[in-house]
């Protein structure tokens, strides 16, 4: 039997940082995400429409950024079924060529093997793509 869970509750301390993940967003990412998600809002795929809406270019779907932050958390815990709760605020647009670093830190250990993480996604200039984000995970 393949065990998915990686890190154990007892191995984790408040303040521990989880390994970061980095992604440079390209227009193709937005097109592929639109097809996969069914969200064809043109401001994410059509530069002409993005400009009409006052933006310099197309930008990443917020839920794409959230999924990549989710991946970063699951890379650390191992078992996707152990991600219990996850919240984000969409704060900064990610344009073609922007590099986002996804990371997190253990904020609190709760009863019942639950761990609360403070998580984030920041662009190369340090400004947030996602802010005030939190995840609750179960660790065996």
């Amino acid at each position, binding site marked *: *039997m*393949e065990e*998915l869970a990686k890190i154990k509750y007892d191995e984790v301390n408040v303040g521990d940082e989880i390994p970061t993940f980095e*992604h440079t967003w390209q227009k193709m*990412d937005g097109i*592929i*995400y639109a*097809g*996969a*998600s*069914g*969200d064809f809002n043109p401001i994410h795929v059509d530069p002409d429409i993005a400009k009409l*809406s006052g933006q310099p270019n197309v930008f990443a779907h*917020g*839920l*794409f950024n*959230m*999924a*990549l932050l*989710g*991946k970063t958390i*699951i890379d650390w815990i191992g078992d*996707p*079924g152990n*991600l*219990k*709760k*996850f*919240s*984000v*605020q*969409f704060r900064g647009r990610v344009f073609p060529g922007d590099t986002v670093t996804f990371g997190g830190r253990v904020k609190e250990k709760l009863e019942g093997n639950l761990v609360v993480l403070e998580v984030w996604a920041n662009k190369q200039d340090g400004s947030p793509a996602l802010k005030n984000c939190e995840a609750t995970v179960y660790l065996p």
Partner: protein
Amino acid sequence: MVDHKFIGKTYGPFRYEIGREKMKEYALATKDNRPIYIDEEFAKNTKYGDIIAMPNFAAVYGLRGAGHVLIDPELQLNLIMLVHGAQEFEWFTVVKPGDVITETGKIADIYEKGNLDFVVYEGESRNQNGELVCRAKATFIITGGGS
């Protein structure tokens, strides 16, 4: 300003059948190729017995009511000025190929802060066994007046 009388307005039920290839497509589109999402042979030897959807696939099956809020002719939200401000998911069980998800939702709140209007949608997704799968809460922000 968005009329507060719409607080409590319900949407759905919306039915969504989970497709094996669609789950994989979503995982790969969000840069996650871990075997439990895409490799049936690997998944067979895990406690799940088959591939599972990445948790954030809830964006596809669990937010359909939110899409209807945005285009609701009664609300007349100004989509040009609207942004998805915040998102929260809570999961209770995993999603597998062939699961049939039924989502129902409602406008949980409408409020103002300064020049910003907030519309909060809450959806609840259950699978074919009636088990709660996911709760989703989406907050939309409309700048400069709601409608």
